[in-house]
């Protein structure tokens, strides 16, 4: 086993995210950590993972990590390239995508996500990029995996702006809002993994990364975080996973 110091926060998040992907799944991939995780999975345990980028590249098999969701390598290696309206209307919206990855600037206990503004919408303290594909990824994928570093700044009691809906204000809200995907099934952070409690729909700590403590996670959460009774220990990154990951990111 590799000691905690032997990987970075991004690395354990990426490896844990990659493990959420099974071979044959269709995965809607955003740029950055999600793309790294998906390409890591495709190179390790999930060779038949089917990558969809919002640029319309279906079944992309990039030989290196793209910087943007529309790099040429994606079009060149895809099974087919469709228009942007098609990727959203014909592929994402009807529920053909198994897993969608999302990042966030803020997330709340119901896994609602903010990527729009910090502060007031009309007069923001920090203007963020905005929605992009996220609202419909959150609405329509069979499962959503959210990946972000955990702190009181990011794990807040109430997000400043709901860009993408998790479980709204609680159980039953997704159905009421007509959201047909399953919603966020996992939130993967640098400290552990959270999942919605089946009863309350509130994010609950279900797995602790090697080296993290429950107190540390609670201290990094802006609400009174529930802990799963069967709290698991995240399996540490395998040497093989880290090797492939570092090759991918150029930190080999």
């Amino acid at each position, binding site marked *: 086993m590799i000691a905690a110091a032997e990987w970075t926060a991004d690395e354990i998040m990426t490896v844990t995210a990659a493990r959420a992907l099974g071979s044959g799944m269709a995965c809607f991939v955003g*740029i*950055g950590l999600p793309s790294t995780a998906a390409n890591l999975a495709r190179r390790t345990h999930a060779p038949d993972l089917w990558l969809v980028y*919002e*640029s*319309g*590249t279906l079944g992309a098999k990039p030989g290196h990590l*793209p*910087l*943007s*969701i*529309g*790099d*040429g390598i*994606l*079009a060149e290696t895809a099974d087919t*390239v469709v*228009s*942007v*309206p098609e990727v*959203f*209307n014909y592929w*994402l*919206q009807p529920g053909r995508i198994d897993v969608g990855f999302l990042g966030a600037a803020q997330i709340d206990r119901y896994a609602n996500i903010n990527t*729009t503004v910090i502060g007031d*919408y009309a007069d*923001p*303290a*920090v*203007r*963020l*990029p*905005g*929605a*992009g*594909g*996220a*609202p*419909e990824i959150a*609405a*329509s994928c069979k499962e959503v995996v959210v990946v972000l570093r955990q702190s009181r700044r990011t794990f807040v009691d109430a997000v400043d*702006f*709901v*860009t*993408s*809906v998790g479980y*709204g204000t609680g159980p039953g*809200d997704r159905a009421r*809002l*007509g*959201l*047909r995907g399953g919603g966020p099934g996992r939130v993967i952070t640098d400290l552990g993994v959270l999942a919605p409690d089946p009863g309350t729909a509130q994010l609950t700590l279900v797995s602790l990364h090697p080296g993290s403590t429950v107190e540390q996670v609670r201290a990094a959460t802006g609400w009174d975080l529930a802990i799963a009774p069967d709290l698991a220990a995240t399996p540490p990154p395998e040497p093989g996973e880290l090797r492939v990951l570092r090759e991918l990111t150029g930190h080999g």
Partner: protein
Amino acid sequence: MPLDEGVRTLVRDGDTVALEGFTHLIPIAAGHEIIRQRIRGLTLVRMTPDILYDQMIGAGCARRLVFSWGGNPGVGSLHRFRDAIQNGWPAPLEIEEHSHAGMANRYVAGASGVPFAVLRGYTGTDLVGQTDAIKPITCPFSGEELTAVSALTPDVTVIHAQRADRAGNVQLWGITGVQKEAVLAARRTLVTVEEVVDTLDPVPGQVVLPARVVTAVAAAPGGARPSYAHGYYDRDNDAYRQWDAVARDRASFQRWLDEEIGAAVPSGGER
């Protein structure tokens, strides 16, 4: 026609202008020409107002921005966009924002000659309350509530493509994004191309835009740099990374504007 003439003829102060290209084939040269001609009061429309709109906003072309994701892909924030929204520099910027799916469907409605499109989306988000362009709609068959978005019909759409023939038929391929719909939705269209050729040899994955929906073609080799033109040149990822430093600071941006575009910042820019 030459690019400067194309811009002068087709883009007017106060127009609603869409410059489209989803990461690929971004009409950078045309955008710079708009800056150079000091066209003002534009409503700029674009799903991904990346570094091009950062530049146009910073240069003071825009009064309003309609968009769905305002970042520098893979790099980070757009500092001129932020500065305009947070601090009103060089001028206040109204925004209307959507999701990608919403914007794509708004172009589809515009291209189709109908006033709205229907999608599953937006419900439960705070995007709904910020614009009149998003409304609930009930399915007359199932009673389900879905979302309607209003059609986008720009005064002018500007795109960059690989090739045009002498008759004005335009051919693009690779990632073709929302360009077809953005062109068909517009009243006027300007297309810059890598080259004008005698015959458009068919290419797999191509979109061909017939000449009758193209108002003007201007040759602009390299006109998508630092984005890319599939089959012609690659994306200059370093230029995207370097933009971050240039745009972070008003002074270095103004220097860029002066030196690279030949358009000093507008008077009244500093407030």
